[in-house]
């Protein structure tokens, strides 16, 4: 009973100090929200249309409108069919056409405008099309750009359409697209759990490395050892504090993600283990770093060495699937990886069996680190 009373007294004191320190508050709550707002805003634009430059050098024959093949071709590229209706009203057409003056040097023009995608329609386009004479159109693109893949896909489709039309054929095979989930996973859906993992890591870790080494230096622990406060009560109050902070941060991130950027996610009780184990793990790890190092400076260096790779390579900002194989392997030794993966499994994919494995791994790591920290950490000197 009195142990709980002391833990709560220490929790109140620590929480009050935290609220009075703008730096802690910034990194704990405001910083993750700023990141989600920034990244959310940046990647919200990724569904926008790709601009494609088109130079039309077609010389006709233009005596009849029906013999101008280049104009409907360009309209089709722009998402409008021959009759002026949209080709597919349900989806946003992925490209917009920007016409380029035929008298200009096209490749020079593209280079000057830092444009990666362009199509040049040759001068005998309509003539050869009507005559049924095979010919080429030149597509400029940059294989490194994802926009080029979109552009070449659209051009292939339009060219196929015109080829079929020329021979009066019909589409036999049609493709209906479907995604793995009921909803398509967008970057923001992935970013929310990633940033929850980020704030679960950063706040307790940095703070505990700092206060443990600092309190040791100014002999505050020694002073606390002169009171009935037990070191485990002190540690417990920190863990509880960071669990509360993580939950607050979690709520902020979910609200901003869902209402600000239309993120889709499932909120289930399966999230609770991560919100408890995570802060417990990183509070203990931070305390361990602060305890085993001799000075505040070395503690901070060691803390950064551990925190930074974890911060970026655990799938917080980008999926680890986009990383080279050796980094993916490396990610599997980072404790945060299992938390972020687990949060994704629960919130985004609804894959609870996979999340259970993440919970198991996280629990094991947490127990090891917590026990080590509690054992090595000493109030008094010998």
């Amino acid at each position: 009973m009195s142990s709980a009373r002391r833990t709560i007294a220490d929790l109140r004191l620590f929480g009050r100090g935290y609220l009075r320190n703008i730096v802690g508050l910034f990194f704990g709550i405001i910083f993750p929200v700023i990141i989600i707002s920034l990244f959310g805003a940046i990647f919200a634009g990724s569904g926008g249309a790709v601009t494609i430059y088109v130079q039309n050098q077609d010389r006709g024959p233009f005596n009849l409108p029906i013999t101008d093949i280049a104009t409907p071709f360009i309209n089709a590229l722009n998402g409008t069919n021959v009759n002026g209706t949209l080709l597919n009203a349900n989806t946003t057409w992925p490209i917009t056409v920007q016409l380029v003056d035929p008298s200009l040097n096209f490749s020079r023009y593209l280079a000057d405008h830092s444009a990666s995608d362009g199509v040049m329609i040759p001068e005998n386009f309509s003539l050869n099309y009507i005559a049924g004479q095979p010919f080429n159109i030149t597509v400029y693109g940059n294989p490194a750009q994802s926009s080029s893949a979109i552009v070449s896909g659209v051009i292939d489709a339009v060219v196929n359409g015109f080829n079929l039309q020329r021979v009066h054929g019909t589409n036999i095979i049609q493709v209906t697209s479907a995604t793995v989930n009921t909803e398509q996973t967008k970057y923001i859906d992935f970013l929310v759990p990633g940033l929850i993992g980020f704030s679960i890591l950063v706040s307790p870790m940095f703070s505990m490395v700092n206060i443990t080494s600092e309190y040791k230096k100014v002999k505050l622990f020694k002073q606390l050892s002169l009171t009935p406060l037990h070191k485990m009560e002190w540690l417990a109050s920190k863990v509880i504090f960071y669990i509360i902070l993580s939950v607050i941060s979690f709520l902020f991130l979910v609200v901003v993600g869902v209402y600000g950027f239309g993120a889709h996610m499932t909120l289930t009780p399966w999230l609770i283990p991560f919100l408890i184990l995570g802060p417990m793990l990183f509070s203990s790890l931070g305390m361990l770093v602060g305890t085993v190092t001799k000075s505040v400076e070395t503690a901070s260096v060691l803390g950064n060495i551990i925190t930074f790779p974890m911060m970026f390579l655990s799938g917080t900002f980008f999926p680890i699937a986009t990383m080279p194989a050796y980094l993916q392997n490396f990610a599997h030794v980072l404790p945060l990886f299992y938390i972020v993966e687990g949060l994704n499994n629960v919130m985004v994919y609804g894959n609870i069996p996979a999340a259970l494995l993440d919970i198991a791994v996280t629990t094991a790591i947490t127990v090891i680190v917590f026990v080590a920290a509690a054992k090595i950490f000493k109030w008094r000197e010998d």
Partner: protein
Amino acid sequence: MASIEVSDLKKHYDNIKAVDGISLKVNEGEVFGLLGPNGAGKTTAIEIMEGLRERDAGDVRILGLDPWKNGYELHKKIGVIPQQFTFFEKQSPKEAIEYYATLFGVKVDPHEILREVLLEDSANNRFENLSGGQKQKMGLALSLVNSPELLFLDEPTTGLDPNARRAIWEVIRGLKAKGKTIVLTTHYLEEAQQLSDRVAIMNLGHIVAMGTADEIITQHGSGERLDICGSQQLADYIRANTDLTVEYDSVRELISIPLKERIDALAALAAAEQSKMDWGEIQTRRDSLEDVFIRLVAGSVDESGNIATSPSQGKAGIRWRRK
């Protein structure tokens, strides 16, 4: 009943014998001063008594308890200000007292404690904004939360200006008047003399003298001495022409001669007169605790309490640098 009993206490760090076999006893209601230069072993000794450090050898009983093995119980009964007391920056003295009260499971009136340590005006100022003296007072306030019968104050006034130091003294005197047993370490002689009933002088891990100031002076002092205001040359002249021990304080330009017999004073004055050199005020006085302290620690002690052994100036030539 003795509050503190220490016998043959030893503690070493690597090759340094920080405390090398000290024994002492502090009685209930007594203010006991542990005096010594930096590195004498005062803090190690007091921290062992507080239960903050483990001893290598010897027996220590604090209020009947072994401070290392029964530290947890002991800490409920004692009050401590560690050297360079510090606290969580964003908390005020009032909040700190409330925090300690909850930890100790006691009910206290923060304002009453703050009044006792003369810190009521700063009850709600955050620790980071307190002055050095106010911080020490807050330390004192926290050490009083559990109404301890025994207080350990480790250099409570180090680094404070004279006014702040006197304010702390006033607080300590108040505690003494309430019958608290107090162990105080300091490297300020004046402080030890002003506050303590008994003093132990520590040097290099040993207690070199112990007792009331008078007892120490009688035991280790040379009795009376003659002080003459004059130059180094005059001091040298007297030293060369008499068989007296001549000490010279170049800062105060003071020649100081311990007198074995009263007649020695006449010999010294005769030599001074004979030298034809200028000399000013003369007086005879008894050795002070300071004189004894300097002789016992055999070196000069600066403001921060460090010993700097100076080249010998004659048999007991000592330079004592004043603040």
